[in-house]
């Protein structure tokens, strides 16, 4: 290394730096979304082959997830209180929800948070001058590599709507977007709630997030109309698989009673409850982390 002087840095010696003015959390959020979008774009442009491979994979996964129920509905001409076209709409809704989830929470294992906790990688978050929740909200954002499922969901939704007597008004579109956002929030919150186990048992619970996500992957596309009231209530509250596609789809098809037309109010309310519970538990988990730390570290999957 050359022995060059750094005395010319006088204007910028330690302790004299002026940072960009923080205008509040919203601007930080937007700035970081921009940063992660850029990182994703760069990855897309540099590793195009792999990026396209992942995008195609997402589409295959989306189609595979709906294939079983679609084949059942073809065989039986619809089931669970829904016609074939209604089932197709519900499946499309489910793919749209997965699309949002992928778009915002694919990167950095944000959708599989138990891996971050269990591998001791929260330390990396703690040394950044950004609130943890903003990091969680932004660093999984992949608008390019993670968009294929969402595109697939949009196409499927538009296609399915052709066969249904639904009046697609701006209010309906708003209700659809609110419903899909709420369903995504329910899935995310459920995964985070279960993943909090990794604070206490990092090694054993490292892979619990994918397990917590799997009921949604496998079962959210089943119509639950034929179930008893008890089970319907269960699957729309404590085990919220029904909130990921079935119940909001019914609202949007105006087959569920509601004061606000197609707006899936119950899904939105439950999403708020789940998010609050997840936030509370995660905060407790972070306190536990601050007290005991994580007795292991693995850089696997980090960045």
């Amino acid at each position, binding site marked *: 290394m050359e022995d060059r002087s750094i005395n010319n840095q006088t204007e910028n010696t330690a302790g004299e730096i002026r940072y960009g003015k923080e205008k509040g959390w919203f601007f930080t959020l937007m700035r970081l979304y921009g940063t992660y979008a850029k990182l994703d774009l760069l990855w897309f442009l540099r590793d195009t082959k792999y990026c396209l491979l992942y995008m195609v994979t997402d589409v295959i996964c989306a189609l595979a997830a709906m294939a079983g129920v679609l084949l059942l509905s073809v065989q039986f001409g619809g089931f669970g209180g829904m016609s074939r076209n209604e089932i197709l709409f519900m499946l499309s809704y489910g793919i749209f929800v997965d699309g949002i989830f992928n778009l915002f929470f694919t990167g950095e294992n944000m959708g599989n948070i138990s891996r971050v906790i269990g591998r001791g990688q929260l330390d990396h978050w703690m040394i950044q001058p950004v609130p943890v929740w903003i990091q969680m909200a932004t660093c999984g954002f992949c608008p390019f590599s993670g968009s294929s499922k969402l595109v697939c969901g949009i196409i499927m939704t538009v296609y399915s709507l052709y066969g249904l007597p639904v009046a697609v008004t701006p209010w309906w579109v708003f209700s659809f977007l609110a419903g899909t956002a709420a369903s995504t929030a329910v899935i995310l919150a459920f995964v985070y709630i279960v993943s909090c186990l990794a604070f206490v048992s990092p090694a054993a619970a490292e892979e*619990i997030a994918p397990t917590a996500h799997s009921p949604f992957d496998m*079962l959210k596309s089943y119509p639950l109309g034929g179930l008893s009231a008890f089970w319907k209530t269960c699957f729309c509250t404590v085990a919220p698989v029904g909130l990921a596609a079935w119940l909001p789809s019914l609202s949007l098809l105006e087959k569920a009673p509601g004061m606000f037309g197609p707006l899936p109010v119950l899904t939105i309310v439950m999403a708020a409850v789940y998010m609050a519970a997840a936030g509370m538990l995660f905060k407790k988990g972070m306190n536990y982390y601050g007290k005991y730390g994580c007795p292991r570290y693995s850089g696997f999957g980090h960045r």
Partner: protein
Amino acid sequence: MKRLQQYTATARICAKGVFDGGLLSVAGEYLVRFLQLILLVQIWRSFGESSVLPDGMSLPVLLTYTLMASVFRQQLDIITPATSALWEGSITGRYLRPCPVLGGLAAETIGRWWIPVFLFYSVPVLLISPLLGISPLPASAWNLVFFLISLALSASLGFALDFIYASMAIRMKNGCWAAQMVREALTQLFTGALIPFAMLPGWAGQLLSWLPTGSIASAPLSIYVGGAGSSPLYLIGLQLFWNAVLWPISLWIFHKSEERMISYGG
């Protein structure tokens, strides 16, 4: 005998690693699985009540099929640590042990997943299944015997496929998780673990049952519950055929990829 000791020691240490986490950590995973079973059972119940099921598939049979798919999920969906070890680079360590790498990976799978899941999920679920209104019993004693043979062949086929996936993963480098994702997404549908092939339109069910993946879950489960289209000898014959085809391919492709595994993993 010495080899068996090596595998037992590996399986034991992997199993202990799971148990050491305390009840809370394993209970979380098993609870989610149980929830999944309950949900599917309720869906089938409502389905059976509202639709006419195909020939040879009654509601009790459908429920037993679903129960056994959940109970033997680990054996019917083999995922060894091969792919993750390749990705982490820890595969090199397996080559430093005085026992075959594939055998070691199989022992790790048994220790890390089969034993804990069997003890703390499969057995309790089997015991409480009558309370859920599901019969855990096979169609007959012969069906049970054929099922056990079929299950062994299914597990063997699962290992062969997993090693093929792992070998492919090393060639795909950064795309290795794409292969894993596709595999996970297709497994449930293509193996028949989630929806019995008999429930699908005839052409789809027939096609899927001929694929190697169809021999993994659908074959043993169909044998267990009996019924039409599930001649045990035919299904076991098909499983033997796929084992005979896939194992040589698996060993060949795995050995072809070994050098790459070690240099990449190291």
